């Protein structure tokens, strides 16, 4: 049974490879056998762990993906959906987003987007990649419903094939507008690539969430709050510790 994300993308629950299933299934059986020879708590623990691994393997659930919470679609893509409420009108937000050249102002990993051609439906994207490199691709708008929804997808030849859409929904009361974004993309290196990216702090869902928060702050306040450059009596290693906490420095 496939799960459906908020944006309607089908996410497959079967997200581990046959080799992975064999490996963890074997490990599970081993632990269960081992548990039969143990008494007391350690036996219970081993048996439970083995049963969990075995059932995970039987259902095709990847332990790695479960631990890192990476979600994949049926055709092996990463799917991300995030939402934020911003105190601006639907029209203001639609207009801001429809000009894709605004996107790098709040999407941290984008270096630039250049709109090409008269109708603004085609664009060239440059994104920052690890180790100071960049990834570039062309994209086109596939759906454009003013004040409601914009969808786009990368064109043939993209290193990281991706597509996404954003919906603008009036929020209740005087809350403004809900922005719902969803993206799917095929990372280089498949799930492994996504897991590595997550370990390096580049997890796509969190990134989109942060991007949306940045958009909210840009449009509501005009700037991101920062503490960078304020005085402290920090020395040496303490500076690194503070930097670890202060994850939203804005230089």
């Amino acid at each position, binding site marked *: 049974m496939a799960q459906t994300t908020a944006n309607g993308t089908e996410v497959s629950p079967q997200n581990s490879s046959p080799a992975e299933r064999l490996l963890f299934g074997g490990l599970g059986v081993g632990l269960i056998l081992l548990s039969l020879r143990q008494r007391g708590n350690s036996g219970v623990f081993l048996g439970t762990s083995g049963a969990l691994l075995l059932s995970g393997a039987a259902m095709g659930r990847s332990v790695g993906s479960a631990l890192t919470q990476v979600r994949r679609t049926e055709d092996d893509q990463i799917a991300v959906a995030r939402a934020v*409420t911003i*105190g601006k009108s639907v029209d203001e937000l639609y207009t801001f987003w429809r000009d894709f050249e605004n996107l790098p102002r709040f999407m941290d990993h984008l270096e630039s987007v250049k709109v090409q051609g008269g109708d603004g439906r085609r664009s060239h994207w440059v994104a920052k990649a690890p180790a100071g490199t960049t990834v570039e691709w062309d994209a086109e708008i596939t759906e454009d419903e003013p004040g409601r929804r914009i969808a786009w997808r990368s064109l043939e030849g993209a290193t990281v094939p991706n597509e996404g859409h954003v919906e603008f929904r009036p929020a209740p009361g*005087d*809350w*403004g507008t809900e922005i719902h974004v969803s993206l799917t993309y095929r990372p280089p290196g498949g799930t492994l690539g996504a897991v590595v990216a997550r370990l390096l702090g580049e997890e796509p869902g*969190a990134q989109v969430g*942060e991007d949306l*928060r940045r958009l*909210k*702050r840009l449009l*509501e*306040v005009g*700037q*991101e*709050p*920062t*503490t*960078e*450059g*304020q*005085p*402290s*009596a*920090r*020395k040496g290693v*303490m500076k690194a*510790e*503070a930097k670890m*906490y*202060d*994850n*939203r*420095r804005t230089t």
Partner: protein
Amino acid sequence: MKAVVWQGINRVQVENVPDPEILQPTDAIVRVTATAICGSDLHLVDGYVPSMVHGDILGHEFMGEVVEVGPEVRDVRPGDRVVVPFPISCGKCWYCQHGLTSLCDNSNPNPKLAEALWGYSGSGLYGYSHITGGYAGGQAQFARTVYADQNLYKVPEGLTDEQVLFLTDILPTGYMGAENCNIHPGDVVAVFGCGPVGLFGIMSAFVLGAGRVIAIDRFPERLDLARKLGAETLNYEEDAVFERLKEMTGGRGPDSVMDAVGLESHAGGPGGVADAVKQTTRVLESDRPHALRAAIMACRKGGTVSVPGVYGGLADKIPVGAFMNKGLTMRTGQTHVHRYLDTLTGHIERGEVDPTVIITHRLGIDEAPHAYDIFKHKHDGCIKCILDPWADPKDHAPTKAP
């Protein structure tokens, strides 16, 4: 400049640090003329609020004179005398526009930490750990303040620093604590904790129409002050508080109970010891909720529990059965300081509230370690200590850290 710096658990020192600068166009630099140590600073010093870093400047109760403003600051000018509310309001988000400034969506630069701990992030706070933004505090000679137009509150002519300093935190906190009690004229309000917030809670409860206030603490000087403010008092080391409260209220219990103690409440008995031991691990339990438990138990059926005391993380064995079966309401929150400033300034100007009565100590900034020490241990009759960042150190003997 001189600043009071957190150097680790139970280590506070005064160090020379660089002067603050304008970092964003909406900033203002304030020359601090008066600052105070708050009970919640003790939670930082005791190490129960995570994400403090060696070298962080403490302090969220401070006021002074504006000496420099960023290019986008419109309403505040150099020379203005201002108090600085401890929660930082962006002024633009839904929460700020609805008077819930301590829940501001936009002012915390590190919301991910708060979201991991609390699900959602509140506003940034000055000098109060990196969970609440990592902003440098105001126990210093100068302070950078942010979103100056939204936050700096100009002090009316004719009021002294001591009269208005507590508008930054504890006076509105006591007031909101009383407001959260949902007081009807003549109600009986019990207040656990007669520290500065509890004392202002007592004052505010009367202002808001309480008929009687019963104050609970163990330090005679605090209980004396509570009595001077019109409260009846109970010393929990001498009285069986629950039984006495019942008896004093005709068996009904107080209509509202305020927990003005928070996460380091003092308790004897096996339960108190268990909490204390678990809390020292910082993992098993982050908060000692004894006063909160007592408040829930003591409150009359259908009454209101108000919690201005600070809680940080997870507390064990909250009597949720009593809470549910007695049909209680609980109201709490970091104080939305901004919404109370006009009202409370009016009370001060008309002489209806005198915030200076709680001040027991006035020290120079060089004496901050000593000030923390006596405030924390309630030595020397200390109820509230204010610091002068510009006092001549020669006037004060150097002292040891707590």
